[in-house]
């Protein structure tokens, strides 16, 4: 089949019922959850993931990725209306979005964010179609040794880049995630490990249960301490849709640039939308003729931040689909969705499952159109309602969904205990600046890492020397060392230089 044939087949699947229904549902769920500060799309994806067990691979993953995309836009609503970002991905949007609200231009700001998000996301998704042939060639170069090293590199990058904490904390978190998944029957030889002769533990822990525990239950424990609603009274929502659209048209070059900044940063595991929206905002300020207006309600600030965070979605999908290395919590859950439905990231996603890959891209592309319509016609009218939702309503409902979802996985009480234990662990990890994403990534990648490690060791009778046999493996090892020890080497170098100067 040619690429065009595959594209047409994928489009047919996306626009068929009920797939299109799940797409629209996902966007709406994502928008609503993304707009509630402290909740976000990650929780929505975490509790929906086990519920997709009975759906097809297309329905499940299009639903999940739509929640991801919708939440990326939804986070801007509270940023703009009440100066509280729905998630870190919309933090930079507050700088100019909220001042616009205070200047009586809330509708302008909401219009700008909807349009920039939708167009920025759409442009980057279209560019993905052109990247696919190159990606598939790169992916074909990766064998078992490289996949194993890439898993470690992914965890190392998340550990170092995703948090501004010490590298060791990230490594401990990631390694613990890898370790805990060794419970159960070993993949290489059918030997039970750490099962205490309990049959319920033979299948080990479920990484989906760990995801639910850490992202949903853990988050609810944090929220319980914050409690209540952000605002009790209505927000003044005034302004002009037309003026907002005109602002986007005038800032079209900025929007395109910011979207691709978001895409490039999103492709780096661990960087994510929180980095991309700040980076794009900074770049917009740097390149502006009159940067002093930024921070006082300049529409360009909203354009840059919002185009970047939706551009990140396209970028983050690349390492997830191509290498099975999710770069963020959302893509870690997405990877969970792939694996749950028998889809292995890597070369197969560009050959045997190319239709699925294209269907995801088309779903994201069409999802941006839905974001635009809902953003312009609905959010500009009732967006402030979402900011008044009491989190004491959300907490018990999310907990119920989490429990049911966890039980639905395997009807195994170990999964219920898992979500509780990891929920508590996640709370303390967040409190003391340990990387939750690194641990989740370790849990998700443990199976891939161990299987490819053993396969690699069997490929060559010299065992571990296989990892030093080819340039690509050596490059990956070099990158792991740079990522892990780069900061330490930099500190030492700066110390030596300053001592020399003094």
């Amino acid at each position, binding site marked *: 089949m040619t690429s065009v044939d595959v594209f047409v087949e994928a489009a047919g699947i996306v626009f068929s019922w009920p797939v299109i229904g799940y797409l629209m549902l996902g966007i709406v769920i994502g928008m609503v959850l993304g707009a509630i500060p402290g909740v976000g799309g990650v929780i929505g994806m975490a509790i929906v993931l086990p519920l997709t067990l009975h759906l097809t691979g297309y329905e499940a993953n299009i639903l999940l990725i739509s929640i991801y995309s919708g939440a990326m836009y939804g986070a801007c609503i509270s940023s703009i209306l009440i100066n509280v970002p729905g998630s870190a991905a919309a933090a930079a949007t507050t700088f100019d979005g909220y001042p616009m609200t*205070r200047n009586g231009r809330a509708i302008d700001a909401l219009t700008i964010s909807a349009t920039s998000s939708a167009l920025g996301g759409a442009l980057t998704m279209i560019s993905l179609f052109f990247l696919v042939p190159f990606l598939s060639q790169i992916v074909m170069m990766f064998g078992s040794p490289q996949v194993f090293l890439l898993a470690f590199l992914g965890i190392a990058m998340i550990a170092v880049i995703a948090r501004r904490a010490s590298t060791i904390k990230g490594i401990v978190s990631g390694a613990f995630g890898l*370790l805990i998944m060794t419970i159960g029957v070993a993949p*290489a030889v059918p030997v039970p490990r750490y099962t205490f002769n309990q049959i319920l533990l033979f299948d080990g822990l479920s990484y989906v249960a760990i995801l639910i525990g850490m992202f949903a239950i853990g988050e609810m424990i*944090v929220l319980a301490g914050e409690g209540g609603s952000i605002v009790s009274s209505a927000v003044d929502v005034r302004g002009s849709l037309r003026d907002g659209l005109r602002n986007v048209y005038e800032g079209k070059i900025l929007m395109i640039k910011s979207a691709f900044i978001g895409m490039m940063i999103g492709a780096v595991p661990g960087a994510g939308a929180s980095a991309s929206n700040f980076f794009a905002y900074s770049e917009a300020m740097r390149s502006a003729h009159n940067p002093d207006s930024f921070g006082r309600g300049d529409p360009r600030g909203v354009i840059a931040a919002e185009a970047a965070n939706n551009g990140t979605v396209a970028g983050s999908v690349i390492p997830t689909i191509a290498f099975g290395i999710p770069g963020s919590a959302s893509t870690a859950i997405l990877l969970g969705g792939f694996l749950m439905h028998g889809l292995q990231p890597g070369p197969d996603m560009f050959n045997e499952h190319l239709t699925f890959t294209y269907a995801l891209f088309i779903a994201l592309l069409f999802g941006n159109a839905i974001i635009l319509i809902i953003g312009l016609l609905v959010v500009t009218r009732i967006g402030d309602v979402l900011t008044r939702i009491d989190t*004491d309503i959300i907490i018990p*409902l999310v*907990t*119920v969904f989490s429990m049911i979802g966890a039980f639905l996985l395997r009807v195994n009480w170990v999964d219920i205990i898992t979500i*509780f234990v990891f929920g508590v662990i996640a709370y303390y990890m967040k409190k003391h600046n340990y990387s939750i994403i690194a641990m989740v990534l370790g849990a998700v990648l443990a199976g891939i890492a161990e299987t490819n490690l053993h396969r690699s060791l069997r490929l060559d009778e010299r065992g571990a020397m296989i990892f030093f046999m080819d340039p690509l493996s050596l490059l990956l090892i070099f990158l792991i060392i740079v990522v892990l020890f780069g900061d330490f080497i930099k500190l030492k170098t700066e110390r030596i230089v300053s001592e020399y100067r003094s």
Partner: protein
Amino acid sequence: MALARGEQGLLIFFLVTALYMFVESFEFQETAAFFPRLTSTLVIVGSVLLLLREYLPEPLGTFLADDGDGEQENRRSRGPVDGAEDEEAPAEPSAAETEEKDDVQQTTIFGRDVPIAGVNRGVLTVLVAVYIALSYLIGMLWATPVFVLGYAAYARLPVYLTVALPIIGFAIAYVFMGFVYLPIDSGVLHDWGWI
């Protein structure tokens, strides 16, 4: 800087778990033991370094030092000041300030002053534990409204929500039981014939 008790507990948990898994790995075949041994070693070394970081020499201590101040993504400022005529937007508190604010609001339990935020989190954690235990005993379908009612009552939600939310919770569980045949309408007490 001395380690907080919570962080000490977390690291000790990681360390003890990894030590157990490392020792236990010698009971397995070599192929099955390699990966757990490798990963548990990383956890053990990392946890020990972090637990002892204040006693380590300066370069290593700096390398292990943490320049973050905790999770900031979910920290919220209070809402906007009412009235568009206010000239200055309220400054968004930093994570440290917000945490301090949370901890300043206190209540008294068994004669001790404790932060309300911590109590709320503790209560939710206990409620979830009870929810799990009750689900095991009588089935998740029946435990769900009890949990939701318990939380709604503790959070002092309006009466209509305190009534509606448990019904919604029950309905959610019922839908899953009906549509995907999830066996949540009975627990071990039913199996034992106690109910």
